[in-house]
């Protein structure tokens, strides 16, 4: 048997799904869209029940992929029973979806969740009356405390063996006659669930009108009777209004509010602080700082900087060194001053683990005397080393994602969107994009994963596109290395700082340019619920994390590994690859490719001269992991002292690496999280942005280096151009506004 879980976002659906399916849960994708499909099995009944967790939705309209997926699943695949989870603390709005589900010919059971909170606040909900009014069984549960789950499944199992005829709450409204005619006509066409389709057709739902244009034409004369009311022929409005009128009418009979207490709820109190007029933004900055500190800091809580506490003196480190694990700590962290944060600690542990595996395997090859063979090279230098580069970031990727999940589940993420929306609207984004973009400074992979909850696909694509422009942790070593060779060493820190600023500026410009060129001018609507604050559930967090880990491992074992092998092959063989491996990377195919591609990058300045191909090769190996840019440059003999690029060339090279394709892990994540078309635009944009920005920077810098006055003239000309363009746009807008007013 097959049961589907349907409900609003934030109604506790995930918690219920996890406690029903436990370890059997697995996540796939709905065909053609980037929406998670969660499935699992419930085993505590006579027969195993296949459970499908539909995405959290507020209604069954056809606007988002989540809604289309849920709707098609219930209507076309006909589960044996739909369990509709309803948040009892937010009954009125949750029942809106219920009224739509009732219109499909499928057994429905209502799981009234969070009843414990309702009772605690002193309210009473008459579930018997609710059940009688809606004509379906209602079961009180608390998904959190695992109460009522068994009863719910037993009731659903019973309901699944019956047939339920669709009914609509709209039959009590003046739309009754119209609905009946449309239903009969669809019935005559042998349409399944005719009532559901009839109502959607009356609402002029885009999925229905294309399918049943004939019926729409036939009922048009009757529809004309309705056009002269307060809705001016807006049937969507009439239907939505009728649903809510019905809910309001019966709601008062079902719920008895406790004598109105003027006390604020805990959620209100928390909210007052977190969204305070003056404190909200500082609080947010502090919270974000703590997150980054816990993931990336090598001196936890600045204990060393402030108290001079060193790693050697702290007890818990002695514990590990005592067990012989000192090497793993020495390897990963750059300094041993201070205690590493959880992220850095796990990273060094991971590095130690993968490093040990590489040592072990190369030890085997050495013992067998085959260390110089191509297959030993493939496994040790290619696969394991590549995987080591990616996996050393895995703990920090997961930790960042864990913190995002905590922010999301607690309800704080929605508040940040609320606080920041105003600032983001100008760029065609909403406040929701803020946290993912900020996470980009840590790692693009979790940043892109965090866009999953966006409703608007365009906004999701755009956020993914911009995330790598926020310079991530793996790119930092490149800047650090280049900073040491910038002529005039005092410029080093300014150089690194300006790279980060450049990333933000280009991200903003990208957003503005893409917005200007997109056909759909309107900003995605920002009409959303601010859910009550919840304590995040440990079990749910773990489930989220496990899903992402599995997904990442799958990607790592397929696309990323394939890419690593290709680059390893290119950098270890010459064109006559059957003659064996090369000793020096400069004789490899990759080096030759670099010598050709060097000319492609000529306009960018940094590939000029005899060493030009080396920078090109380093940029290519950076696709495995960005810190490989530094490693490859080292292999090719490019270090402080041997790099003879001018400041303009260095800056252009840095800009190119900041904006070009991120590492394979990020590209793979972008592919799985964006729409198909959006992904190709994104790839193109990354290539374009890196090329153009790098070129512009080089030529401005170069003209300064030639003659200071030439550079000045060019910069002034550009500033003049931008100001002129800006003024024209503002002027045009003003004119348009005046026209509209007139």
């Amino acid at each position: 048997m097959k049961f589907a879980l349907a409900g609003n976002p934030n109604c506790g659906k995930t918690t219920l799904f996890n406690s029903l399916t436990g370890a059997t849960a697995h996540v796939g994708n709905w065909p053609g869209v980037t929406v998670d499909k969660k499935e699992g099995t419930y085993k505590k009944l006579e027969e195993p029940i296949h459970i499908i967790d539909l995405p959290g939705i507020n209604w069954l309209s056809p606007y988002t992929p989540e809604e289309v997926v849920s709707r098609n699943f219930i209507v076309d695949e006909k589960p044996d029973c739909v369990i509709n989870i309803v948040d009892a603390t937010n009954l009125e709005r949750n029942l809106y979806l219920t009224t739509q589900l009732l219109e499909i010919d499928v057994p429905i059971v209502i799981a009234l969740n969070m009843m414990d909170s309702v009772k605690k606040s002193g309210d009473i909900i008459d579930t018997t009356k609710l059940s009688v009014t809606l004509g379906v069984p209602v079961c009180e549960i608390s998904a959190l405390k695992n109460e009522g789950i068994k009863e719910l499944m037993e009731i659903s199992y019973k309901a699944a063996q019956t047939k339920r005829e669709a009914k609509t709450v709209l039959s009590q409204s003046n739309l009754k006659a119209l609905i009946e005619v449309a239903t009969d006509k669809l019935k005559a066409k042998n349409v399944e669930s005719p009532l559901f389709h009839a109502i959607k057709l009356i609402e002029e739902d885009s999925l229905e009108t294309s399918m049943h244009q004939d019926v729409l034409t036939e009922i048009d004369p009757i529809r004309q009777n309705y056009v002269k009311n307060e809705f001016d022929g807006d049937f969507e409005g009439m239907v939505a209004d009728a649903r809510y009128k019905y809910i309001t009418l019966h709601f008062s009979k079902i719920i008895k509010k406790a004598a109105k207490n003027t006390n604020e709820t805990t959620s209100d109190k928390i909210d007052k602080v977190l969204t305070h007029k003056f404190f909200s933004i500082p609080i947010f900055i502090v919270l974000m700082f703590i997150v980054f500190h816990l993931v990336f800091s090598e001196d936890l809580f600045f204990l060393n900087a402030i108290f001079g506490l060193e790693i050697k003196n702290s007890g818990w480190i002695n514990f590990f060194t005592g067990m012989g694990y000192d090497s793993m700590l020495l390897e990963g962290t750059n300094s041993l001053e201070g205690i590493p944060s959880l992220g850095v600690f796990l990273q060094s542990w991971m590095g130690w683990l993968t490093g040990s595996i590489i040592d072990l395997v190369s030890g085997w090859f050495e013992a067998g005397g085959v260390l110089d063979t191509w297959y030993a090279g493939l496994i040790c230098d290619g696969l394991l080393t590549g995987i080591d580069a990616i996996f050393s970031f895995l703990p920090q990727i997961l930790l960042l994602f864990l913190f995002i999940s905590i922010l999301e589940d607690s309800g704080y993420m929605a508040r940040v969107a609320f606080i920041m929306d105003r600032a983001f609207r100008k760029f065609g984004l909403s406040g929701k994009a803020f946290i993912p973009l900020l996470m980009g400074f840590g790692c693009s992979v979790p940043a892109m994963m965090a866009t999953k909850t966006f409703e608007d696909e365009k906004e999701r694509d755009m956020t993914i596109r911009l995330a790598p422009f926020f310079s991530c942790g793996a790119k930092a070593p490149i800047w650090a290395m280049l900073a040491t060779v910038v002529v005039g060493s005092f410029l080093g820190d300014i150089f690194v700082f300006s790279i980060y600023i450049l990333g933000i500026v280009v991200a903003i410009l990208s957003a503005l340019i893409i917005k200007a060129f997109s056909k759909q001018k309107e900003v995605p609507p920002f009409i959303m619920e601010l859910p009550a604050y919840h304590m995040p559930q440990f079990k749910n967090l773990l489930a989220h994390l496990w899903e992402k880990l599995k997904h990442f491992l799958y990607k790592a074992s397929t696309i990323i590994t394939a890419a690593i092998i290709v680059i390893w092959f290119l950098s270890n063989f010459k064109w006559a690859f059957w003659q064996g491996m090369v000793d020096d990377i400069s004789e490899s195919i990759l080096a030759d490719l670099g010598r050709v591609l060097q000319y492609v990058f000529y306009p960018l300045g940094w590939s000029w001269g005899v060493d030009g191909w080396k920078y090109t090769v380093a940029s290519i190996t950076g696709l495995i992991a960005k810190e490989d840019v530094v490693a490859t440059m080292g292999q090719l003999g490019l270090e402080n002292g041997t790099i003879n690029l001018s400041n303009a060339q260095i800056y252009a090279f840095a800009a190119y690496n900041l904006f070009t394709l991120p590492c394979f892990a990020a590209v793979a994540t972008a592919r799985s999280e964006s729409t198909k078309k959006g992904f190709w635009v994104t790839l193109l944009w990354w290539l374009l942005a890196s090329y153009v920005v790098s070129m512009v920077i080089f030529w401005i810098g170069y003209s300064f280096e030639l003659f200071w006055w030439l550079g000045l003239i060019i910069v002034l000309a550009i500033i003049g151009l931008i100001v002129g363009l800006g003024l024209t746009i503002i002027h045009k807008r003003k004119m348009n506004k005046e026209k509209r007013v007139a």
Partner: protein
Amino acid sequence: MEKLLSEMKPLEEGIVKKIKAEGKIKRRLYDMGVTPGVNIVIKKLAPLGDPVEVTIRGYELTLRKTEAECVEMEVKA
């Protein structure tokens, strides 16, 4: 007194009279329960002055001022 939802101040209360929005915004307003006759209390403005948070049908809803401009209200004295 008639006002647009976007013109109401925090703690003011009113009843929705008419929705003038189009397309996606209209659909979303309806589906979030912003329909004629419903009671809305303005809770607060975001620190930057926009969007606005309101209490409607027992839950907290947030919407931008440009979206709130589409909602005509009868404000309670």
